[in-house]
């Protein structure tokens, strides 16, 4: 039981340390307005391929609004399908991402005045016959972000909707013939055609006759911010700023109705695959160095502490402790990591535990590693002969000293190969972290891919980066194993 208390202490220490790290990572004062945006939706919200800075029509509009309203902005990039959840959870304060007005959203959110008037268009593979209007989509399949207005239009027209993350992915599915069409904003479609120089897809027709209106979305209870935004938008319209931003991207003023045909030919230059990869190589490598690797290392270290605690609790002989350990292990192993990430990031704020992205990622990954590694550590400890514990006791060692000096060094031999697998899996699992808004290697690849409107070469590059790091880890594992096996007769 005395070990029990120490163990409990160990676990509590980890739980206390985790949010402490969290506090360290949070920055900035409170009166900051956090803007949720995809960062992967050109020309509205994307990363400039030269500077890697977040830019686009929506980004510039919200910056202009902030200047008028006196806000300080903090951008939070997330997929569209997580964007309203982030707003609900209070992780962001406003969405600037071409949120189309509809009655459901009017009911749930505080929508600003309109800053974009656009038309939805139906995009098909070039040469496709028989799809020119919404009613033609009946029985067909379209690719959409599931929570968009366009997805609703497609469903209402009787189409089956395949969920995707962003326009580039949807376009790829259309090009490959895996879906029949996509519905999206006219401007986004034009941007794709211009940026890729591709004639694989074409605009087949409009999605209904109605002009759609895009607005900033706030939480319903945030009336003050909404008020300030509307005042700022009115001023920006009056002084011509909004028109100027729009003309920079579209040659026309999309912030008013019926402004004519947009022309995006002056937009970003068409780049070859080699140029695209070259431009993205450094930002992706940087993300690997400053996010993927440190998060992996920290989560693995904390996860190991949790694993040791859970393993010791499991074999402690105390029913309560081993019960807790077994429930923990079972939950972690029995649920998807993606779900665990969502719960830590979007669920915990509901009970007042609001972790910023990095700490949330580290908490979720540490808990996950802890659950998986606990069984490895447990069987490794049990693989050390009982006589070793007894020999340690007989020379006067206590529980922790025996573990540290006698048992763990021997258990390591058994534990290292499976733990290396855990580490390698963890490294790759960090690619899920974009859902908790961490810009790691894979998210950076997505950014670059959407800005370039093509993702195969960039995902290939990401794959190479992951593979190289995993290969290095595997080599390190080999060396450690050799070291540990040194003292064992074979």
């Amino acid at each position, binding site marked *: 039981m005395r070990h029990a208390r120490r163990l409990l202490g160990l676990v509590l220490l980890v739980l206390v340390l985790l949010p402490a790290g969290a506090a360290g990572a949070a920055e900035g004062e409170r009166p900051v307005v956090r803007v949720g945006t995809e960062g992967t939706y050109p020309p509205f919200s994307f990363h400039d391929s030269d500077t890697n800075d977040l830019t686009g029509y929506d980004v510039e509009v919200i910056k202009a609004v902030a200047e008028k309203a006196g806000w300080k902005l903090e951008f939070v990039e997330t997929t569209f399908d997580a964007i309203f959840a982030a707003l609900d959870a209070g992780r962001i304060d406003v969405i600037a991402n071409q949120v189309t007005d509809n009655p459901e959203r009017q009911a749930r959110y505080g929508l600003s005045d309109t800053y974009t008037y656009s038309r939805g268009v139906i995009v098909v593979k070039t040469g496709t016959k028989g799809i020119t209007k919404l009613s033609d989509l009946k029985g067909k399949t379209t690719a959409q972000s599931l929570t968009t207005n366009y997805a609703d239009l497609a469903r209402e027209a009787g189409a089956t909707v395949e969920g995707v993350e962003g326009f580039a992915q949807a376009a790829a599915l259309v090009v490959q013939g895996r879906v029949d069409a996509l519905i999206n904003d006219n401007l986004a479609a034009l941007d794709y055609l211009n940026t890729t120089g591709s004639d694989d897809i074409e605009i087949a027709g409009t999605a209904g006759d109605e002009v759609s209106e895009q607005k900033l979305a706030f939480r319903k209870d945030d009336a003050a911010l909404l008020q300030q935004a509307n005042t700022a938008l009115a001023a920006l319209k009056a002084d011509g700023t909004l028109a100027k931003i729009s003309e920079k991207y579209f040659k026309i003023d999309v912030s008013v109705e019926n402004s004519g045909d947009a022309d995006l030919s002056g937009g970003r230059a068409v780049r070859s695959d080699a140029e695209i990869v070259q431009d993205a190589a450094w930002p992706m490598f940087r993300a690997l160095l400053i996010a993927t690797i440190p998060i992996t290392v920290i989560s693995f270290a904390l996860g190991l502490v949790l694993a040791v605690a859970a393993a010791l609790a499991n074999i402690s002989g105390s029913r309560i402790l081993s019960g807790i350990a077994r429930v923990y292990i079972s939950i972690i192993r029995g649920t998807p990591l993606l779900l665990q990430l969502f719960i830590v990031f979007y669920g915990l704020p509901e009970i007042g535990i609001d972790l910023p992205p990095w700490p949330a990622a580290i908490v979720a990954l540490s808990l996950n590693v802890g659950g998986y590694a606990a069984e490895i550590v447990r069987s490794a400890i049990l693989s050390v002969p009982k006589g070793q514990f007894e*020999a340690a006791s007989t020379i006067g060692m206590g529980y922790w000293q025996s573990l540290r000096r006698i048992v763990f060094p021997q258990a390591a031999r058994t534990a290292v190969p499976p733990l290396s697998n855990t580490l390698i899996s963890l490294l790759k699992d960090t690619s899920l972290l974009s859902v908790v808004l961490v810009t790691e290697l894979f998210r950076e690849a997505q950014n670059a891919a959407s800005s370039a409107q093509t993702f195969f070469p960039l995902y290939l590059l990401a794959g190479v980066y992951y593979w190289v790091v995993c290969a290095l880890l595997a080599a390190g594992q080999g060396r450690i194993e050799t070291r540990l096996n040194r003292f064992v*007769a074979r």
Partner: protein
Amino acid sequence: MTDTPTPLVDVRGLDKAFGDNHVLRGIDFAVDAGTTTVLLGPSGSGKTTVLRSLNVLETPDTGIVRIGDVEVDFARLPAKGKGARAQIARLRAQSGMVFQSHNLFPHKTVLENVIEGPVQVQGRPLDEAVADARELLDQVGLSEKAEQHPFQLSGGQQQRVGIARALALRPKVVLFDEPTSALDPELVGEVLSVIKELATQGWTTIIVTHEIRFAQQVADQVLFLDEGVVRERGTSAQVIGDPTQERTRQFLRRILDPG
């Protein structure tokens, strides 16, 4: 050797059950300082459990064990808590244990095995502990092997390191549980001669063994254990040479003339 009370080891009313299995049923014996005591007895009679109780690797249900001036009354020992742990640690420190299967630490060199207790537990200075350890290794004939790892040694050499490790803590009494049973026959002699040597140097030892010839040579006292009680006790001449109990005679017959 020291002016601790006589006898050096005093065991009274030792009782231990594993579930329904009543293994020790009131064991009493005493060991004088500087003497060698041999425990004989059939398999399952409780010999190992007696030794492990002295070193508190097993906690007796009741009974009193005193070694030197440390006495523990197990009937009154709390099941847990700091006080109980301290008492156990103090009693345990009075004896050193040599296991049948040596249980050397495979990840440490021979020298590291020997100094582990003195340095890590007793907190003795490293150089002093190393000097001591080298002397002990010399004594068991292994000074050349100090930097090797256990897997590089023969079974007999490993067992001798086990002995040096036990001695390094300077215990009042050294406990041997069948120190040669796991060895190839040709390696038995080297280990027994090391143990014999200890007797001449004044160490107090309690040895569980089936080596009757060896017992006759070294034992000042022989205890014959049977079904958890000391069935017969005396000098080796008495117990081995001229046993009074039928159970003892049966046991000796079986062990001296196997098959």
